[in-house]
């Protein structure tokens, strides 16, 4: 049914995005890239995929400028797609950017809290998370003003409402603010794809639910693991878990009570994928170092983080097997982001002459 009228509005976009997907780097490309001796070689290898964007780089560019240029390409393509999107797809893509907006707002709040000139921070913001009223955030000089007059105007206002007051912004750690916002955002996004009349019952809802559920679980697990040994209390931690996902509600409850790596492992026991991740990570690093991308040690075993990325990429790749769905836009952005991370990683390894870890990238094509 959904296929009948999908192409009227969204067919062009789907075609474009599928085209973009084909230009993603493949395993063969990566194999060529890891054999490069210098950044210039790498640049040459990236030539076909990123040609125009890398042209302005000086010889032997730094890895950060390389990453910046590759991100530029993603941003410009995203903007092109967004400009051509209409109706609920446009709304969907806006939702996609909210995640980046949260990061940007968190950055600006940090700046305001420490009374820095927030204007300088605008350059550091992620371009995908740019929204019209963002420069206005810089006008605010104290946190109350920021909250009362500026944040309300942003698309993120609903995420602040009800869970954060302006006192919270002052007192809470910015990371908690960020994660609270992100939780609200994920819930809202999940709600959006499952209730919007254009998407209910379509492959979009199906695929996006899978992706978002995974994302929610990943955040819950990560927050739990990373909060060990910090002043984040269990009750506060519980508030940061999104209220959906494969782990919800039983797993999250157990997560909120977990005290160590073992506790987390027990909590995720119910989900086969996560169970196998934890088994692999547990074997690789032991309870002491679950995220085993340790400097110098345990380079063989993949870290939990790596496996989550791998899983995310596989889900994203799977999204392209479906037709007539918005989820491919999301999947494409995620795949491209991973590609940028891979390129940065390989470039770092080449620049630092640390070839033994260079194979740590994630390639799904």
């Amino acid at each position, binding site marked *: 049914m959904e296929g009948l009228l999908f192409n009227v509005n969204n067919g062009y976009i789907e075609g474009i995005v599928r085209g973009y997907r084909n230009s993603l780097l493949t395993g063969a490309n990566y194999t060529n890239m890891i054999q490069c001796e210098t950044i210039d070689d790498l640049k040459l290898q990236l030539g076909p995929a990123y040609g125009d964007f890398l042209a302005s780089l000086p010889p032997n560019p730094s890895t950060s400028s390389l990453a910046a240029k590759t991100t530029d390409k993603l941003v410009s393509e995203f903007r092109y797609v967004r400009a051509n999107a209409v109706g609920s797809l446009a709304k969907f893509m806006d939702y996609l950017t909210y995640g980046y907006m949260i990061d940007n707002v968190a950055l600006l709040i940090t700046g305001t809290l420490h009374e820095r000139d927030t204007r300088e921070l605008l350059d550091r913001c992620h371009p995908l998370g740019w929204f019209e009223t963002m420069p206005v955030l810089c006008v605010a000089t104290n946190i109350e003003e920021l909250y009362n007059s500026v944040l309300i105007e942003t698309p993120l206002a609903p995420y602040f409402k009800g869970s954060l007051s302006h006192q919270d912004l002052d007192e809470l750690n910015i*990371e908690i603010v960020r994660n609270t916002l992100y939780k609200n955002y994920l819930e809202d996004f999940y709600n959006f794809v499952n209730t919007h009349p254009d998407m209910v019952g379509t492959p979009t809802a199906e695929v996006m639910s899978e992706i978002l559920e995974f994302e929610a679980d990943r955040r819950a697990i990560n927050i739990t693991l990373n909060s060990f040994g910090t002043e984040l209390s269990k009750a506060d931690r519980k508030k940061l878990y999104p209220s959906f996902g494969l782990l919800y509600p039983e797993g999250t409850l157990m997560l909120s009570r977990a005290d160590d790596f073992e506790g987390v492992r027990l909590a995720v026991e119910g989900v086969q994928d996560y169970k196998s991740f934890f088994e692999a990570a547990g074997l690789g690093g032991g309870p002491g*170092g679950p995220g085993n991308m340790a400097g*110098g040690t345990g380079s063989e075993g993949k870290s939990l983080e790596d496996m989550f990325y791998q899983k995310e990429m596989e889900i994203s790749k799977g999204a392209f097997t479906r037709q007539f769905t918005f989820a491919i836009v999301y999947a494409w952005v995620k795949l491209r982001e991973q590609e940028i991370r891979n390129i940065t990683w390989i470039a770092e390894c080449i620049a630092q002459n640390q070839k033994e870890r260079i194979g740590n990238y994630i390639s799904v094509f």
Partner: protein
Amino acid sequence: MSGAADREAVFPTRQSLGLMKAKLKGAETGHSLLKRKSEALTKRFREITRRIDEAKRKMGRVMQIASLSLAEVTYAVGGNIGYQIQESAKAARFRIRAKQENVSGVLLPTFEAYTTEGNNDFAMTGLGKGGQQVQRCRETYARAVEALVELASLQTAFVILDEVIKVVNRRVNAIEHVIIPRTENTIKYINSELDELDREEFYRLKKVANKKQRDNAAQDAEMKARKEAQGAMDEKDQVADDGPSDILGAAAAEDEDVIF
């Protein structure tokens, strides 16, 4: 004398000879002490050089690991977290204490690193993702900074010791090659001058003695002649006058000897 020019401007007297001898003794003691100090410092210096070499190699390795772990953070977090870290850091966690170490009278500063416990300003950075990498990166960099602190204290010690060793060696050489020879020369000079004076004095005495002898001989001869002449003139009176006049002549002769 060959070292005639290279001696101290003193009058060649017995007093200054004593002074010079004391000075020579002092210089020799000083020389041996300084020599020992210089050897102790050099030993230390070599050790420090070796440790600097080790520390530098270690630093190279540690920094490499550290920058790779930063790359890992970038990979895991998927963005730049520098600003966040800078803003959330409030108090220094890693601090150093400066101490002084005494090596043969040279004060060498040494830096000792320590971390203040319970000061974890950005424990929550990367809570959503990459937190473990951030923490690990922080630990790796803490190790790197530790290596740097060690290297810094070694380098400072190296520079100071180098300076001090140069000064001490200059002193040792100055004493060995300038002060001691010069003092010895001076002593030699004073000795030779004193000998010279002695010889002159001896010669003068001899001359005086000779003259006295001659004078005495002449006097004796005169006396004799006079006596004979008198004896010839009046033989009777001779017996009475003989004794006293003889005694006088002998006493006068003795006296003259004693006078000098």
